[in-house]
């Protein structure tokens, strides 16, 4: 039996889902890194990070999601705001829509500090860590209106921290 509270899963930027804006794959600011690069533009981008950890059809088995860390850089043009929302998607059966619920969480970096021109490591911690059923998955969403400054960003990756039990 495994019951380990220290598992983590790296989620590369190639799995991030970005809409609205011009996004490209680029080298990171540190040689050898990779990034999802957002070009400067005055628009509201939405970047969604799929949390790719195991699930399990039996209660209290599989993965219990505790937190998600996101590494990103704002290179220029501080955005107007950055709002993080953690959503749990319960998949629909054949012919039915999915149901989305918002998950309570806290952020280690305050809203005002998280949008400054700098390197950032935002940690999103679930208020109540959750075991994930095989009909569920989690999406971490960032909504980022940039305003006239435009904001050039690079998203380097994310890490999901979880307990694994089986």
């Amino acid at each position, binding site marked *: 039996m*495994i019951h380990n509270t220290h598992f983590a899963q790296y989620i590369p930027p190639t799995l991030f889902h970005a809409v609205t804006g011009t996004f490209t794959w680029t080298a990171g600011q540190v040689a050898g890194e990779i990034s999802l690069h957002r070009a400067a533009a005055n628009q509201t981008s939405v970047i969604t990070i*799929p949390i*790719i950890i195991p699930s399990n059809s039996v209660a209290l088995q599989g993965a219990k999601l505790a937190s998600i860390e996101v590494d990103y850089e704002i290179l220029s043009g501080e955005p107007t705001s950055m709002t993080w929302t953690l959503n749990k998607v319960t998949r*629909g059966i*054949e*012919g039915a829509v999915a149901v989305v619920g*918002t998950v309570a969480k806290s952020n280690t970096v305050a809203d005002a500090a998280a949008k400054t021109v700098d390197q950032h490591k935002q940690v999103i911690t679930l208020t109540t860590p959750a075991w994930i059923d*095989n009909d569920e998955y989690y999406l971490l*969403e960032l909504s980022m209106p940039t305003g006239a400054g435009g904001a050039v960003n690079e998203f380097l990756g994310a890490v999901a921290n979880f307990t694994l039990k089986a």
Partner: protein
Amino acid sequence: MVHNIHFAQFIPPTAIHYATGTWSNAAGSVGSTIVKRKTANAETSLITVPVEVPSNSVALQGARLDSIEIDYELTIADLTSLTAVINKVTRGAEGAVAVVSTPAFTQSPSAADSKVQGKHKLVLTITTPAWIDNDEYYLAQLSAVAPAGTVIDLIAAVANFTLKA
């Protein structure tokens, strides 16, 4: 020791491979969901799901793949057809090509029902669940023959497997 037959792995739409057609990131029809959306056009697209479960170089250890579920939505018009296949890829040694075989599977809903407009959860169940060697991987592929009007939203996939170690 672990021997748990109830594991599953979420595979997001951004991990899936799309060939032929114009595919782009989009918000799903349900708020806060994400999809890859195919613009309506008469053409045959291939949607290939890389089945990202662990493997193991020792027989009967690692992951035994049981089934793959694919969530998608068809709007505006039915597809002409939607054909599923599961491919097992045995990687080539240095200088050699890979070898692909097609394990038997069953599907629910049927091919006829899975091509109509609506929200779908297509389950492909491998007839003989297979332990995956570290020189192998699986690809679940949908061939979608579209008329001019069909829009495809690919939402997610989930692989169900036994984990043993």
